[in-house]
């Protein structure tokens, strides 16, 4: 059985005549360690699909299984536990807490984890080191650049060493050079065995993935590996 399996996912909003189908009968399988890109135009349903994968948006119908766990058969609190233990999420627009420092933002997922204080500190420092921001740990989000904010968001997403990383437009607000740096980071994590699913509308960023699923009008219209076209390390 694949690591991640989606079967007949449907997500609709509204009622009656105002019903909007964001995801229309989507099925796919993702193996552990894959780097998958989700591409499509605005409004295609990419982010909705990603939020379903992130256990934050229950589908109208269909199942979503990760590591043999049917996510939407869990209670909301169990889904929160699942997100904490299995997922790292990189949000669009960084979503950093403005009154917490870089260090504290990265520490956030560990706040409710039962680990020693020293151990948590080491985990945060490791995450910041991986993204090259250890020296800026004491700064507030409004004291760092857009690229650095994205790195902080990445550090927060990986601090708990999750097996799956979900990234929603991780380079959406960044210039090309910074975007490339961010994508190389994600590639490094993938090389270490992390399963990554990334939503992007940038062809340049999509080339860092090893598999590309194109989404249009809530459906997966193409799903192919990036043989020979992805940017190797």
């Amino acid at each position: 059985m694949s690591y991640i399996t989606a079967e007949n996912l449907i997500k609709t909003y509204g009622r009656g005549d105002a019903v909007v189908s964001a995801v229309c009968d989507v099925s796919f399988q993702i193996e552990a360690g894959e780097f998958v890109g989700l591409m499509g135009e605005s409004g295609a349903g990419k982010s909705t699909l990603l939020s379903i994968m992130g256990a934050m948006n229950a589908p109208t119908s269909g199942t979503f299984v990760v590591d043999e766990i049917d996510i939407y058969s869990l209670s909301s609190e169990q889904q929160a536990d699942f997100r904490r233990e299995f997922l790292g999420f990189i949000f669009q627009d960084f979503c950093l807490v403005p009154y917490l420092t870089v260090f504290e933002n990265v520490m956030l997922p560990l706040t409710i984890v039962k680990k020693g204080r020293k151990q948590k500190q080491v985990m945060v420092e490791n995450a910041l080191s991986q993204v090259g921001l250890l020296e800026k740990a004491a700064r507030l989000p409004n004291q760092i650049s857009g690229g650095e904010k994205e790195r902080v968001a990445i550090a927060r997403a990986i601090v708990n060493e999750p097996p799956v990383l979900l990234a929603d437009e991780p380079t959406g607000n960044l210039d090309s050079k910074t975007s490339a740096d961010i994508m190389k980071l994600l590639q490094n994590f993938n090389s270490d065995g992390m399963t990554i699913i990334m939503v992007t509308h940038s062809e340049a960023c999509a080339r860092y993935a090893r598999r590309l699923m194109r989404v249009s009008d809530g459906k997966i219209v193409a799903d192919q590996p990036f043989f020979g076209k992805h940017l190797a390390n």
Partner: protein
Amino acid sequence: MTLKHISIKNLIRRKGKAFFVLAGLVIGVSTVVGIISYIEAMTNDINHKLEKYGANILIVPRTENLTLTYGGLSLGGVSFEMQEIREAKLAQVSSIKNARNIAALGPLVLGVVDVNSHKVLLAGVDFKASAILKPWWQLQGELPDENGVILGAEAARILKLSTGDSFETKDRRFVVSGILQPTGSQDDQLVFARLSTAQALFDKGGRVSMAEVAALCQDCPIEDMVRQISDALPGAKVMAIQQVVKGRMQTLGQFKKFSFGISGVILLIGSLVVLVTMMSSVRERTDEIGIFRAIGFRKRHVMQIIFLEAAIVSGLAGIVGYLLGWGSAKAAVQFFVDGHSGIVPFNLELAAGAFILALFIGLASSAYPAVMAARLDPGEALRSL
């Protein structure tokens, strides 16, 4: 970092809102504390003043008073048929049912004499009974004999007499055997002689002007004793001094009830301030709470953050509220109560009560906003970004 750090950091960031909540609770708590402290100080003041009176029952001649008023204007009164108390009758007081509660019975004979061109009130007393009835007397000198007197401090000053001096009044010569230290009461103005001396001086053999009774023990049945003494002395008017202040105590009690009502309303308003402010805060933090939930915070973690914020502000409000209320009570007793020492003791129980009350109101008022925050769907919250 713990959830407590998140709460503290958010409070520091949203200082305005935190201060608003704090102010609402401080006003409520300080009002309650101030009123309770003030009433406590007033009650202690009354009790202290009562204790200063060695006598707590007065026996005075029964009089028939007529007060002449017209249209609210008092034109004076006329007292007639005043029946003086016979000394022999007073002895019947020792046969009442609660006679064992009587520590002392002190008859007085009062009259006005001329001394060194001054009119002064002379009181004939039983000095043995006075030791119990007026325990605050401090005498410089000795108790008088048949031809001696002691002077109140003010009387000595005005009459320009000292211990050993003599004076003549009503064709008798008296020697000053002692002078009382200032008592702050009317005793400072009087001349005191033996009861028999005064009776002879004013031609009141076997009669007294009034009598003071000191009834012992904290729970002495004052009302019963008044009734029993009244029954023993039908021609006298018997009053418990507590009756005089009872009206004040009753008024104080009614004021206490009214004040508690006002305090309750103020506390309710304070709790509504907390509720509305916390709800507004939760609405402002929809995206932040969405992040917390998205990265795996359970509902109880989110509620803990909200409750911690409320607890920090409420606890602080309890402390500040108590101090402010206590300070206000101190200022109020000095301003409104004559002769009060101004001492309003620090009440640990009240301080603890104020702290707990503030915490309870803060947490109770934050319950709905906390539940509201916890129920935020992370997907919905993040879509709001």
